[in-house]
């Protein structure tokens, strides 16, 4: 397991690989995130690049999930939660009063830590849930095409094509998580947020999802929270390190850089301690 540390991760696709251009950039400026009066994350300024995988690492409780959820306005669903600062999606502030949180979430999808397919829906309906729940009317074959494309994109098609009408909760954990990814990508968001998507999965299923992430970045901007250093090193282009002073203090973004640099030659001592501590 220590090999990855000693051996710097090979360079990921360079900045020239911007393929489709539909993925969007996110600019976060001076973001403070609160639970009631408690400041959970302080003063984050960062740019999340399109068509890149940005990994967020840091010790437990430093506010990674909180930060991630503030990027698609899921944070404000918690009673008392609030946000200061700005989050620009290709230049448009998603927190501006004229912006509808529901449509923000339609553009910035999310995959959660534990797989959560809708238990009342079949595999097919789960995949199409984003469309069906919003009562999109479309022809059956058009819907079929979207479902197939999303399931193929999630590397799940071959495993489930014969049981599309079976309940989604009947799949294995890893399959369920890929189903959730298919569900999130079927509505074609611009950005995909993933909060520890592999933490409930075994190593094989984890690798399958990492492969998938590698492919998904051709179409989406991806932000992934992970506790797994190797995963961050393997799967991401950019890595951000969050840390927290003492418990009760807000989490802050210590450093954001190319993944190679963070893991081989970070600018901050804290980052180095964290990264090497985990590895060694």
């Amino acid at each position, binding site marked *: 397991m220590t090999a990855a540390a000693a051996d710097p991760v090979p360079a990921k696709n360079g900045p020239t690989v911007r393929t489709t251009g539909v993925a969007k950039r996110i600019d976060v400026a001076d973001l403070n995130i609160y639970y009631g009066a408690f400041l959970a994350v302080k003063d984050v300024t960062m740019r999340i690049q399109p068509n890149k995988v940005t990994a967020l690492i840091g010790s437990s409780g430093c506010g990674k999930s909180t930060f991630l959820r503030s990027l698609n306005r899921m944070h404000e669903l918690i009673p008392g939660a609030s946000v200061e600062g700005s989050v620009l999606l290709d230049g448009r502030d998603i927190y501006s009063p004229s912006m509808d949180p*529901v449509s923000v979430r339609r553009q910035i999808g*999310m995959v959660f830590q534990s797989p959560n397919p809708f*238990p*009342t829906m079949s595999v097919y309906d789960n995949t199409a849930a984003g469309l069906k729940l*919003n009562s999109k009317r479309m022809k059956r074959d058009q819907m079929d095409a979207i479902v197939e494309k999303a399931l193929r994109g999630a590397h799940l098609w071959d495993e489930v094509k014969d049981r599309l009408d079976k309940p989604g909760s009947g799949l294995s954990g890893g399959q369920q998580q890929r189903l959730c990814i298919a569900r999130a990508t079927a*509505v074609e968001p611009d950005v995909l947020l993933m909060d520890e998507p592999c933490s409930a999965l075994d190593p094989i299923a984890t690798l399958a999802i990492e492969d998938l992430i590698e492919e998904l970045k051709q179409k989406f901007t991806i932000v992934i929270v992970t506790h797994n250093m190797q995963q961050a090193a393997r799967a991401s282009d950019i890595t951000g390190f969050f840390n927290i002073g003492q418990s009760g203090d807000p989490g802050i973004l210590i450093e954001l850089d190319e993944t190679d640099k963070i893991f081989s030659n970070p600018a901050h001592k804290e980052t180095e301690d964290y990264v090497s501590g985990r590895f060694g």
Partner: protein
Amino acid sequence: MNPDPLIPFPEVGEADNLPESGPTDNRIPTWGPWVVVAGTAAVLGGLLALTAFNLALLIFGTVIISIFGIYLWARLIEGRRQAFDRAVTLGVTSLFALAMIPLVSLLYTVVSKGLSRIDAEFFTSSMRNVIGEGGGILHAAIGTFIITGLATLASVPVGIMAAVYLHEYGKGKLKRALTFFVDVMTGIPSIVAGLFAFALFAIFFGPGIRMGVMGSVALCVLMIPIVVRSTEEMLRIVPDGLREASYALGVSKWRTVAKVVLPTAMAGIVTGVMLAVARIIGETAPLLITTGAFSSVNLNPFSGRMDNLPVFTYNQYKNPGVPPEPYIDRAWAAALVLIAIVMVLFLVARFISRRYGTELRR
């Protein structure tokens, strides 16, 4: 071993003097208590048979004597504290059995007395022009169906939406007030609900008014809080992850509630509604003063008296003609039908909830 040494142990003083004797091999075998009970029952039964047999006395005596018996036996070989524990165990078990006696006796009574009139005529004819023998519950069954159906149709949407408010939207004073008063409402006596429905209609139509729909209004007062409580309970077990997943797909709140949360909770909500119907379908008092009694079929809940099974049962029993037997028989038969409906609703609801419960908890 103490699994959690951090948890303080209450009343340490008592705990200190607990172990009075070390572990011992001297224990009453597991069949011991059964033998004591059976033996006591046999001996006592024999003694009573010689004098005057009395089932109640036999049961009562057996319980008391066996409790003493097992205490003495355990006292001799297991010690004082174990003996007391055994006595309590037998006592609690007996009390539970005692509590079940009414259920068994009641079911047995209703079935044995009601069966004599369970025939085709009973289900296919009304009491129109019937004096003495014959007649049936057709009109009353239809009335119960209409009255309960209307109450259910009105209560279910209101109850479910109020539960949605409480669990998905509610905050602040209104939520607290509603929670509190729904709880309070579950305790309204059914006769008071009936008086309310009567008062409501009497103000507009005068005191002689009797209609099927008045009964439905009264039943609504009783049913709505039950539906709210059970629905809220079901919404509570829908995992938050499902709501979040839906929001993260860019689905609005109302669609999330209507298309993800409610369908997920649906089996449980249906169970709750069935139990609520089971609770109100046998309500007699509110209908007695709102729907009145009537011997023919009335299909219109908005006009005239409408008979129903509970009121039919009551009137057949309370105001029999001469000779009274046919009336009493009809009362028991109607009670049997009523109890059968309630039991079917109850057991089916339990069955659904058991299967469904394990599914969600997985």
